[in-house]
């Protein structure tokens, strides 16, 4: 046995993954409260799909199944994807997205630790591009819904695609970001739009509370040193600053920074997705650059791009630049004047 002879007690990949999953629980609870049981079904189905896909790939690649299956990384990918897509989704949407994420984005790129692109975001991007209609069918918050969907109805919809005696339109509603984009295109101002029922105090009704819970979970992860402050702070600060800039220029066409921070995938992205170890930079300066890039692209795609929310694409674009960022941001080593030059 060689030195060191002791390791940090209780430290493992699965401990870290479990802590991240735990940090998501407050947000999931609030999500269920505001939007109904669909999210729980999505999470469960995605988790099962992820584990099955992971087990199959591990077998095919001749890896020991048990240690990798129990490390929790597949379940985390599944949850992040399920939280990014509409909660009332047909089963095939969940299964295709999760399977693609695990099989292609993770294992075909080398498995745990080796993938270049964030698997959950790859899954999301594939679904967004392949099934754009389904991906924009978000359920209305229960408070606003004409027909709040119960557990068995949600289950029925997921697996059969139909709701008993209710049309889908009665259940779904455009998201806050989607609403904003459409209404702005119809030449309404931000001020007018903000009074529509789908909006709450900062962002969307219900959605803003979920975002606040992601923030809480993120602060928990920071306190436990699971993530560092660099990526979340640079991402949120950039998003807020660019939003403030445009908002300052023309408040009737560009929403406020607080709106952008509390809608869509901003908070989830900042603390749980952009901080993914494997696909983000390893140097402190690198993380700042990465976060800034994601924040900037997120705003650009949201406001000037074709999609209501850009978190997945901004992260995927920045993922591609990570090896370059790492090479050019090596920190100064003890006893040297500077870091390693590429």
């Amino acid at each position, binding site marked *: *046995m*060689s*030195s*060191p*002879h*002791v*390791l*940090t007690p209780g*430290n*493992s*990949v699965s*401990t*870290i993954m479990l802590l991240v999953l735990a940090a998501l629980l407050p947000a999931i609870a609030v999500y269920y409260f505001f939007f109904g049981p669909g999210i729980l079904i999505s999470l469960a189905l995605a988790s099962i799909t992820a584990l099955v896909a992971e087990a199959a790939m591990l077998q095919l690649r001749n890896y020991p199944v048990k*240690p*990798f299956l129990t*490390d929790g*990384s597949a379940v985390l990918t599944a949850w992040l994807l399920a939280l990014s897509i509409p909660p009332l989704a047909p089963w095939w949407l969940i299964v295709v997205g999760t399977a693609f994420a695990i099989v292609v984005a993770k294992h075909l790129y080398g*498995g*745990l*630790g*080796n993938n270049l692109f964030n698997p959950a975001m790859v899954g999301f991007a594939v679904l967004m591009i392949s099934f754009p209609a389904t991906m924009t069918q978000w359920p209305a918050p229960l408070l606003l819904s004409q027909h709040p969907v119960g557990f068995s109805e949600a289950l029925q919809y997921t697996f059969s695609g139909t709701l008993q005696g209710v049309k889908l339109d009665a259940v779904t509603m455009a998201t806050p970001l989607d609403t904003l984009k459409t209404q702005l295109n119809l030449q309404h101002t931000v001020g007018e739009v903000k009074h529509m029922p789908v909006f709450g105090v900062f962002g969307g009704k219900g959605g803003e509370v979920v975002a606040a819970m992601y923030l809480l979970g993120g602060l928990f992860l920071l306190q436990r040193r699971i993530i*560092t402050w660099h990526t979340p702070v640079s991402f949120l600060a950039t998003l807020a600053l660019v939003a403030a800039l445009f908002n300052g220029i023309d408040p009737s066409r560009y929403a406020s920074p607080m709106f952008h921070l509390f809608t869509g995938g901003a908070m989830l992205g900042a603390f749980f997705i952009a901080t993914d*170890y*494997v696909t*983000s930079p*390893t*140097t402190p300066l690198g993380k700042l650059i990465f976060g800034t890039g994601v924040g900037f692209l997120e705003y650009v795609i949201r406001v000037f791009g074709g999609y209501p929310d850009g978190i997945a694409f901004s992260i995927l674009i920045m993922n591609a630049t990570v090896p370059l960022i*790492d090479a050019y941001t*090596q*920190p*100064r*080593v*003890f*006893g*040297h004047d500077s870091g*390693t030059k590429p």
Partner: protein
Amino acid sequence: MKTLHKFHGGVHPPEHKTESSRLPIAAAPLPQRLIVPLRQHIGNPATAIVKVGDPVLKGQMIAAADGFISAAVHAPTSGTVSAIELHAVPHPSSLPDLCISIESDGEERWTERWPLDYQTAGPDAVRALLRDAGIVGLGGAVFPTWVKLNPGSQKIKTLVLNGAECEPWITSDDLLMRERAAEIVAGIKIMAHLMQPEQVLIGIEDNKPEAIEAMQSACQGTSFKVVTVPVLYPSGGERQLIKLLTGKEVPSGRRPINIGVTCSNTGTAYTVHRAVNHGEAVISRIVTITGNVAKPQNFEALIGTPLGELVQLAGGARPDTSHYIMGGPMMGFDLNHLDAPLTKAINCVIAASPALFPPKPAAMPCIRCTQCAQSCPCNLQPQELFWFSHSKNFDKARAYNLSDCIECGCCDYVCPSHIPLVSYFRYAKSEIAAQDREKMAAERARQRFEFKQMREEREKAEKAARMAEKAAAAAAAKAAAAASGVEDPVAAAKQAAIQAAVERARARKAEAAAQAATTATENPTES
């Protein structure tokens, strides 16, 4: 006085100090047999100056320093040399080394001791005494102290004394500082006299309040300052401690003396005092026996005491002991032979059990969490070094400053994938060293080949020159002969000789014919 500076990273392993620091230093009884290795220091091993059967006295030199970087070795007690042979020694390789075995006669008779008044004797005399007393750094690196305590032309700003003892479980420096602070300070005075520093700082971690107090009292009346450093592994690493106390970083690849700093262990200062003020060579040290033993504590034991005996003195190892660790849990190595002796480098033996030192789980792939980079006291990127070592990309490992790694183990300690990072770095370092050696050998071979080529060319050229000269001389002579009318002097000379011979022959023939004719005319009747 608190320190103001910090170093990057560091970890907080559970300290386990109180197990062995509750009891005072106990004197270990005289062993029956002492096995003294000749190699207890960096540099050349000492060469034996006694033979089997020789009687020896306590403190007598039994092996002399060999070369500049070397130190002498002395008999820990009086007795007879029973063997000079290979014996198990504490070393990660588990290989045996040459040792002088001494059977003790139980009388503990001292050899003649020659203390020195260091203030009147010149610094060279003091250093010579340190060399001949076998003084080496007792912090673990065992570098010969007389070489270190030579400022040369360098102005020394700070003399640092390392009383940090940052590894868990080890308390030997702690107890020495508590009980023998005055003697340590006496040793520091001698070191300060040799180095003439502008300031003397003694760094002690704040988990040793009694030691801090004892050293502060002992330093009263001197200008030496005791500085408390926060508990953080590896604050006792030489470069890290220098950064903590002075704010300066020793440049990579250079030594502390290059920035006007010298760092020594407090235990070394103690031995310097015993050698200079009492004339005693290094023949004993304080060692912590702790872990899965019945009575963990510190012993003052003779160098050469079989370690198994010390474990017995500490109450013996409990039945579930699985192995023994030399040194601390972060940088120590496995002891494979309990009959290996105590050497100058050993400050601790930990009896390990599965409960105290759980087996390490299997390694998972690296997930780039950068906990290792966040904890590295040298601010390296261990995950990058891991990727490069793993894929045998040694050029990149070199570029990413693998040689600056002090193998402290912080990265291993925090890795959630339980990757044995330090082992990979040791592997890569030895591969790089082997590559460098091969390259040097190839370079030398190339130089010799090129020189041989050049030499052959030169000889060829010289020969050609000689031939040309000869040809030129012949041509010159020919030209001279042609100028004086003779076509080919050699041939002409030959022709002349032939002609002369022909003439001589004709002349003789003519003479013979003439002789015959005269005889015929004088004798006509006979026909």
